[in-house]
């Protein structure tokens, strides 16, 4: 059986992060092992035996998919990320490890696949096979959801979203049940209506996304990483910065059915602490995405919304807020769904593009 030569990579070069998925074959025969060139082995060894690369590369070990059958092979799928501004370091590494000697095709998606195409050529002697990011995203989501693996369910939702303290993650099966609204929150946000694997459209997008959260947090609090910003947000209280309906009306605005806790105006008050600012930024951006998403769902007449993208990584607060916003403002009509591999679907789609060119 012929298949693509190893190594199998899929890469998604976004505005902030590069996402890389790597398939590590575990069913290598002795014969294969003898034929495996040194460079290939060295790459495999480097990627699988480390969980951090350089100063900024990270392998999300908890997301690793073990014993995955892909194109007649069995192996583990690894998920690696590093900041886009470190892409030159990555290219240098590829050059050092003589990646180009493997004559493989590197499938890449995301804007960076276009922006850095010539850099890959000149710096790493690599030719990129460019794929559309939304095609990859949809393909990746549907693929990962369809793969049955042991371990936690890929898709989940929050039970009791209106009770922030008692809401709990519950597994959910998408099972290709269309239509879906797919909301990808990266640096910016894209909202897609998906009707089948090959039939989707981009409904709209907003520039108020993960990049805005981090960008504003850096300016307002002096932090420099997403983790730092989230950590501050978790300690803060947004109501110290936001003006609520009850701050204006003393309670609910009954004439229009607005509960007193609704944020009337974000950032309308003098903050006390930096972490309050981080929290308010997070809540504002998240609620805004929720609001636009809800309107799109209504306009497109879609009830299930899948949120993906790296803004949601380790960001349980935003996920709960989104779950709550979808549920509350739609009177339970809309269901917010989340996927464990948050930001990696584009990269997975790129890998699939390598294996099953369409």
């Amino acid at each position, binding site marked *: 059986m012929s298949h693509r030569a190893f190594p199998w990579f899929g890469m998604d070069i976004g505005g902030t992060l590069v996402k890389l998925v790597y398939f590590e074959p575990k069913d290598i025969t002795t014969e294969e092992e003898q034929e495996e060139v040194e460079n290939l082995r060295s790459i495999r060894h480097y990627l699988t035996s480390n969980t951090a690369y350089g100063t900024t590369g990270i392998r999300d070990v908890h997301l690793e998919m073990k014993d995955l059958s892909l194109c007649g092979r069995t192996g583990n799928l690894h998920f690696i990320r590093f900041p886009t501004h470190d892409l030159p370091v990555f290219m240098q590494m590829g050059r050092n490890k003589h990646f180009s000697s493997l004559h493989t095709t590197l499938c890449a998606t995301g804007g960076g696949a276009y922006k850095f195409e010539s850099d890959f050529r000149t710096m790493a002697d690599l030719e990129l096979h460019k794929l559309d990011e939304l095609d990859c995203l949809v393909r990746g989501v549907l693929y990962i959801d369809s793969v049955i693996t042991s371990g936690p369910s890929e898709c989940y939702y929050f039970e009791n979203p209106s009770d922030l303290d008692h809401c709990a993650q519950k597994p959910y099966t998408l099972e290709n049940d269309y239509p879906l609204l797919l909301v990808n929150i990266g640096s910016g946000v894209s909202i897609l209506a998906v009707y089948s694997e090959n039939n989707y459209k981009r409904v709209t997008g907003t520039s*108020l996304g993960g990049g805005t959260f981090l960008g504003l947090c850096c300016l307002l609090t002096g932090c420099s990483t997403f983790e730092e910003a989230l950590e501050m947000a978790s300690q803060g209280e947004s109501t110290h*910065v936001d003006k609520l309906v009850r701050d204006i009306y003393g309670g609910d605005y009954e004439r229009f059915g607005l509960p007193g806790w609704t944020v009337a*105006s*974000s950032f*309308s*008050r003098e903050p006390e602490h930096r972490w309050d600012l981080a929290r308010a930024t997070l809540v504002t951006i998240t609620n*805004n995405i929720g609001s636009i998403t809800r309107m799109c769902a209504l306009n497109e007449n879609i009830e299930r919304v899948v949120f993906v993208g790296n803004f949601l990584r380790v960001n349980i607060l935003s996920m709960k807020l989104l779950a709550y916003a979808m549920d509350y403002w739609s009177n339970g009509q809309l269901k917010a769904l989340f996927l464990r591999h948050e930001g990696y679907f584009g990269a997975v789609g790129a890998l699939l593009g390598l294996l099953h060119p369409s």
Partner: protein
Amino acid sequence: MAECGRVDSNTSSHTMDKSITLPPDEIFRNMENAKRFAIDIGGSLTKLAYYSTVQHKVAKVRSFDHSTKEAAGDKLYEIAVQEEVTARLHFIKFENAYIETCLDFIKDHLVNTETKVIKATGGGAHKFKELIERKLGLKVDKEDEMTCLIKGCNFVLKNIPHEAFVYAKHADSEFRFQTTNPDIFPYLLVNIGSGVSIVKVESEDKFERIGGSSIGGGTFWGLGALLTKTKRFDELLQLASKGQHSSVDMLVKDIYGGSYACLGLTGDLIASSFGKSATADKEFSNEDMAKSLLHMISNDIGQLACLYAKLHNLSRVYFGGFFIRGHPVTMHTITYSINFFTKGEVQALFLRHEGYLGAIGAFLKGAEEDNPNQYSWGENYAGSSGLMSVSPDMNPMQRARSGTFDMLEMDRLDRQLVNLPLLQDPSSYIPDTVDLTEDAQAREYWLSCFEEALDGVVKRAVASQPDIPEAAERAEKFRQKYLHKLQTLRHQPFAYGSLTVRSLLDTREHCLNEFNFPDPYSKIKERENDIALKYYEKAVKSLEELSWEDRQFALVRGVLAGNVFDWGAKAVSEVLESNPEFGFEEAKRRLEDRPWLVDSFDQWLERLKGPPHRCALFFVDNSGVDIILGVMPFVRELLSRGTEVVLASNSGPALNDVTNSELQILTERIAAMDPVIDSALREDRLTLVQDGSSSPCLDLSRLDKVLAMLVRERQTDLVIIEGMGRAIHTNYYAMLSCESLKMAVIKNSWLADRLGGKLFSVVFKYEVPAGKPH
């Protein structure tokens, strides 16, 4: 420019004199007659509304009794100047810092009010409640903010033509005013205050807040202050207008290296707001951050507005709130956002009196028993400041005003105004032929023309009140006021909506009324009418001697020649005074020979050979020869053909135009000489009706309701519009659903030139709507 320092709580009225550029009695006009109050206190501005009565002079004409007729000598009718009381709404906007001194002033001048309550709305209403109650002794009665806003919005959309506009930063004229659509509902109002409220308005009383957002003006202000350490909203906007957002925002090209072509996303599109500031080791300029923030918030609001408009299938979206309030920067970014998200399907609309909506609404809530919504109201150009630009690049004259007081006055009209039912498409009808806001060359000409004519108008005003010694002083005040208006309009042609010859004429009439010159032409009109009446019988007789076909031509020439008589046409008026009969003939001689500049006389003649019209509606123009020797014989012929005639004339005086009450008397006098007119009057085949206006021009979308009813009842199938003001400056392109005849002589050489003709060129435009045999 006045320093607008904060007024501390112990100041007395002398502080006010220092800080207000206009004397207080110029601002709080007619306060002694104020009957009812409302106040809208926002974050920085207070809007006060009051209903007051204005006593002013009106000229009335009255026929002499038969018994006293001899005693009256040679006078045709009696002209009496009477005092009349009319209702007026005053709205004043000032900074919250002045609130206390303003309240003191109001208290001192409040004498005739019986009200015990002041309606209040706005976020600051509760903060100043105690102060207002203590100072004025009125009970503050709070009204819901949103309800007031919607009520106010409905009111201005219904009553103020050119209230809404589209903003286009780089166009020849920044403001493109919308024609008044008689059907204002449904619409979406996006109010951008601290937060955003999106309200769907379906009827006068039915509206719903369908959505909103916490990212609004407060977010711009709050976040902007945190990012730039600039505390003032206006300064933040100034910063933003100077910045480059691309240094802070991550654009599509920053991610892709170019555009994302297959999705049609251009490289300059913002992919992630503040996406480039996600770093600890780079400094960003205040200007750039403010700009990025402005874009982020405007785009977000625009996007939400579009999503709501789409979901509710609404195409009219009005934006208001302090974030917008006449700021060109925010109007531009919101407009840009709406265009981007709807690809031009929805237009972002803004309102000239947006800042007053809450105050107007609160006032209306308190005045429900007076039924203000049952009346039509008109913006008084003399008493209203007009739209001020707060753009930093604007000239200093206006900047000085923006920090002080702004006023809007609306007169309650005696009659309810509606559309002419015969307009082909009321929603696209534009009365004015040339929009001077868009045509800079025409604007310059007409502004200068009105400036040059001012001396003559002043002279005429003084002469009209020979027995009143202080008339000269008043006339001088009138001159100053109108001159100032013209200067304002030179700098801000958009101040009162689209600038047109009509609005310039109307503004002049409003200013004349303001200084109690209700009818400067009354005596001249009387004399002209008197002289012309003497020749009526002779004129009719000579027409009757002509063959049918020759007569039809002579009748048209008569109307046109009569229309040459105008006090603007000096050469002709001198002849008229010495020998009217000769003058009339002289005027005919001066008329352009056929073919005329616009000439559909042959078609008209053909039409006359067919069956008579059921009913003709005739909008008449000048007094004297025009109405008596031109129009009346023409009307007589129509009546003889079996066509009913409705003669529409102005309700109030404007220049030498014949008014309805004058025409009543003239028609009676003609009826006494002419059995045709007499029987037509008695049999109701000739009806006189007022048009509801006091303008030398004609707005067919604001006509007396009675006229509209009559037009419908009589099944009017012909509309005749006469004169330069009504048929050329306005309605030249008006499309009617029935036959129409527009007749005018061009008595202005510049306009003649513009239309490709010369002085005394004739416009005879007979039109049959497409798809109708006649």
